C-alpha cells in the first residue's frame, strides 16, 4: 500500500516539477500585447503548429521590463514578444537576446529590424486623442484636430495626458514632440500645453479611460484604447493630430538562454508570416508588414488605411538613450 503522505509528497513534487520547467513542445513567451489579441494570435500560431504549447505571461510594458531585467540571472522565458522597442534596445534587455532572423523577415523594411537581427518589429501603436463628444457638447467646445489646437485657452483644464516619468506612452508622446518639432520648439510646446493640462495621469491608457468616463474632454493616449472605447459604445472620437503622431513599435526576439530554441524559432517565424499579418490588422494601428486589412472597428474609429504619412519620424535608439536627461528636464521644468 502507498501511504497517503508519500503519495501527497509525490504529487507535490510532480506539481513543482511540471509548473517549474519548460519542456520540449512548450515555449514560454513574455509579452505586453493585450489579452484578447494574445488569444487570437496564439490560436493562429497553433493552427499552423499544433504541437507547440505556448505559455504566455502578459504584463504592462514597464512591469515586464522590470521583470525581465530582474530575472536576468535565470531567465524563465524563451521569447520576448510584442514588446516596446524603446525598452527592447536597453542594453540589459538587448544583450539577453540572440541574433535570429525569422524566415521571410527580409520583407520587412530595414528600419523595423535590428541591424544585428536581435529583434524584429511587427506591430506598433501611435499617439491619439480620445475626445469625449458629450463633454464637448455640454461645455460647448470645438473638436480639436491638431497638437496646435490643444493650446487654445478654451480647453483649459479639460486636457489630460500620461505622466512621462511613470508611463511609457507618456514618454513616447513627449519624445515624439521633441523629435518631431525639434528640441527647442518641442520644449516650448510642452510648456505651453502645460497651461491647459488638468493633470498628468500616471498611466498610459488612463487618460483615454478618464475621457470616456466623462471626467475630462480630451485624453492624450494611444489609438488602441480609443478604438476599443468607441467599439464599447462610449461617446469618444479618435483624433490623430494633423501634424503627425508619435508611435512605438512592438518587437519580438529570441532569448539567448531559451530552453526550447527550435520551437521558439517556429514561433518567431510565424510572427512575420502572412497569416499573422492578417490577424494583427484586426487589432493594430501599425503593422510593419504590408498585406493586412484595417479592422472594421478601426475603420469605424477613423483610422486611415495607410498610417505611414501621419507618423512622426522617430529615433528609438535616441529616445532610449536620452530618457534620463529628458525626464530630468521634464520634472524640473514642467512636472507639478
Amino acid at each position, binding site marked *: 500500500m502507498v501511504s497517503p503522505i508519500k503519495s501527497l509528497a509525490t504529487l507535490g*513534487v510532480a*506539481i*513543482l*516539477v511540471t*509548473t*517549474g520547467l519548460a519542456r520540449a513542445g512548450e515555449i*514560454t*513567451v513574455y509579452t505586453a500585447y*493585450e*489579452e*484578447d489579441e*494574445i488569444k487570437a494570435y496564439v490560436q493562429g500560431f497553433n493552427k499552423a503548429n499544433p504541437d507547440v504549447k505556448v*505559455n504566455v*505571461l502578459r504584463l*504592462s510594458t*514597464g*512591469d515586464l*521590463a*522590470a*521583470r525581465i*531585467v*530582474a*530575472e536576468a540571472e*535565470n531567465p*524563465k522565458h524563451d521569447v520576448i514578444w510584442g514588446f516596446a522597442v524603446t*525598452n527592447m534596445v*536597453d542594453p*540589459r534587455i538587448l544583450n539577453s537576446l540572440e541574433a535570429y532572423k525569422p524566415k521571410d523577415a527580409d520583407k520587412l523594411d530595414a528600419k523595423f529590424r535590428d541591424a544585428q537581427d536581435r529583434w524584429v518589429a511587427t506591430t506598433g501603436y501611435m499617439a491619439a486623442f480620445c475626445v469625449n463628444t*458629450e463633454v464637448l457638447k455640454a461645455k460647448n467646445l470645438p473638436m480639436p484636430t491638431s497638437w496646435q489646437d490643444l493650446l487654445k485657452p478654451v480647453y483649459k483644464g479639460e486636457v489630460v495626458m500620461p*505622466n512621462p*516619468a*511613470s508611463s511609457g506612452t507618456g*514618454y513616447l508622446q513627449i519624445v515624439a514632440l521633441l523629435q518631431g518639432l525639434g528640441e527647442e520648439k518641442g520644449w516650448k510646446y510642452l510648456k505651453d500645453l502645460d497651461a491647459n493640462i*488638468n*493633470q*498628468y*495621469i*500616471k*498611466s498610459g*491608457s*488612463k487618460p483615454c479611460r*478618464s475621457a470616456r*468616463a*466623462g*471626467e*475630462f474632454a480630451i485624453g492624450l493616449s494611444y489609438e*488602441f484604447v480609443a478604438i*476599443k*472605447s468607441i467599439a*464599447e*459604445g*462610449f*461617446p469618444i472620437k479618435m483624433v490623430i493630430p494633423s501634424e503627425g503622431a508619435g508611435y512605438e513599435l512592438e518587437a519580438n526576439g529570441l532569448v539567448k538562454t531559451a530552453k526550447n530554441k527550435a520551437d521558439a524559432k517556429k514561433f518567431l517565424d510565424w510572427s512575420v508570416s502572412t497569416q499573422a499579418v492578417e490577424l494583427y490588422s484586426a487589432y493594430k494601428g501599425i503593422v510593419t508588414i504590408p498585406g493586412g486589412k484595417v479592422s472594421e472597428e478601426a475603420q469605424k474609429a477613423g483610422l486611415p488605411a495607410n498610417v505611414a504619412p501621419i507618423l512622426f519620424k522617430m529615433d528609438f535608439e535616441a529616445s532610449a538613450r536620452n*530618457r*534620463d536627461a529628458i*525626464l*530630468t528636464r521634464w*520634472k*524640473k521644468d514642467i*512636472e507639478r
Partner: protein
Amino acid sequence: MTAPASAMTPASPGAGRGPGPAPGPGRGTGALDGDRLFLMLVGLTVLAGLAIFIAWPMIVVFLKSVAVGSGYGFDNYTKVFSAPKFWTIVGHSLTVSATVTVITVVLAFIYAYALTRSAMPMKWLFRGIALLPVFAPSLVQALGLVFLFGRNGIINRTFGLDIKIYGFWGVVTADVLYCFPQAVLLLVTALSVADARPYEAATVLGAGPVRKFFDVTLPGVKFGLLAAAFLVFTIAITDFGNPMVIGGDYTVLANEIYNQVSGQMNFQLGSVVAIVLLLPALFAFQIERIANRRQFALVGDRSVPLVPRRAPLFDGAMLAAATLIAIPILAVVGIVIYASFVKTWPYNMTFTLNNYTQNTAQNGLQSLWNSVVVSLMAAGIGVVLAAAAAWVVAKDKGPVGRVVNALGLLPAAIPGMVLGLAYVFAFNAAGGVMALLYDTLLMLAICNVFHYFSQGLLTASTSLRQISKSFDEASSCLGGSAFDTLRHVTVPLVLPTLISVGVFFFMRSMVTLSAIIFLISPGTGLAAATVMLLDDAGSTTHAAAFSTLIMAVVLAALAILKLVERLFARPGRPGA
C-alpha cells in the same frame, strides 16, 4: 494589580516544585528546561522563516541601493536626494500619511468601540462591511471613488457640485478606505477582551463615563492604538496604487519607486527610495516600550468578562456613527457591482449580463481557482506563523524575541512592488529547495504571507498581551509545560483573533497584486492579475464583473467558515 503574580515567582521556596533533586537557585527544574527548549525551538524556526523571506530579500535591496558601478557607495542616495522636487515629494508622503493615520485611527476606533462595547444591533453586518475594502480588488475602489466623486461622478452630477477628488484628498480618501479595515481588525481585538472589574471599581469610586473612558478604556488599549497608528502610517506611506489612480498631479514617494523601476528600469534609484521608506518602521520598534508604560493585562485569572449592557441612548449613537462610516464603504463597492451589470457606464445604463457571460480572458476561471488555493495556503501558513511569532515576542525578552518582532513588523514598510522584485532578485537564481519552490502557487502564498505579516503579527500580539501572565504561572504551578499552557489556555483565549487573522490573510491574498505580479508565471495566473488584464485590454465593465466574482467567492468562503465554526464551537465558549 500584580500581587497574585509576585507571590508565585520561582524565588519563593517551596512553591510549585516537582519532586527530584533540590534545584539550584531560582530555575533549573525539568519543566522549565523543556519550556525553554520549546520556546527556543519555535523562536528559531520563526526567525529562520523571517530571515529567509524578509531579511535576505531586503538585504538584496539594500545592496542594490549602494551599488555604484562595480563597487559600493552612497552616490545613488545623493543622486535621489538632489533630484528635482524630491523633498517636496517627501513632504507629500508625510502629509498624506499623517492625515490618513489620524482620520483612520479615529474612525476605526469609533467603529471598533461600537462593535465591542455597545449593544447595538446587527453587529455581524457591520463587521462584514468593515472588511469589504480588504477583499475588494483595488480596481473596485479606484473605480468606485471616481464613479462617486469624480468630475462626472454621481455626487457632482446630482448635486451640481464641483468636488475635486483628484489630488491630496483623493489619495487620503482612498487610503483611509484601504487602511480602515486593517485598523478595525486590530482595535476590535484590543477592545473585545476586557475585564469588567476595573469598570465596576471606577463606578464605585464615582467615576463618570468620560473619566472611565480616559482612565480605564484608553490605557487598556494603548498598545492596540499605537500599533494601529504605526500600521496605518506605514501602509499609507508605502502605497502607490491609490496615488496612481486618483492622485492626479499629487506625487508621493512610493510613486517615485514605481517611476524609477517600471518607468525607467532603474533599480538602484528605486532601491534607495525603498530603503528610505523603511525609516518610519524604526518608530514601530519603540511601540513596545512606549506601550509598556502603565500597560496592564486586561484578562487575568480573576477577571470577569465585560459584557456591554443595553443603553438605548448610547447604543443608538453608536449605531448612527457606525452607519455613517459604513455608508461610503458600501457605496464605493456597491456602485462598481452595479456598473458590472450595465452596458456602458454612465452612458448606456441598460441592464446586461454580458460582462459576466462573455469573459474575454483566457484561463479566467483557472486563475480564480488558483487564487483560492493560494489564499487558503496563505491563511494556513500565515495564522500559524503570525501566532508563533507573536508568542515568541511575548515570551522571549532576549535577542530572539526582539529580532522576530523587528523583522515581523518590517513588511508593512515595504511596498509590494519592492517585495516582489526583491524576491525575484533573491530567489530566482537560487538553487536547491528555492528552485523547486519558485514558480509554484506555494511561493505566491509565501510571498503574500510575508507581504501582510505585520498585520497578522500585530493583531496576534494585541490579543496575547491582554492575557495575564498569571495564567502561565498558574499553569506551571500545576505542573503544566509552556506547551500545555499554550494549548489549553492561550490558544482557546486567542482563537477568535486567530480566525480573523486567517481570514485577513485569505482576503488579501485573493486580491493583492503589487508583489506577486513579479512572481506569477504562465501556469500560475491569479484572479487579481485577470482583473488587471481585462482592465488593461480596455474593458472596464468586464474587469468590474470579474472583481464582483472574486468578492462573491470570498463571501462564500466566509460563509463556509462561519458554518464550520458553528459546527465545531463548543458550547459555553465566549466569542463563538
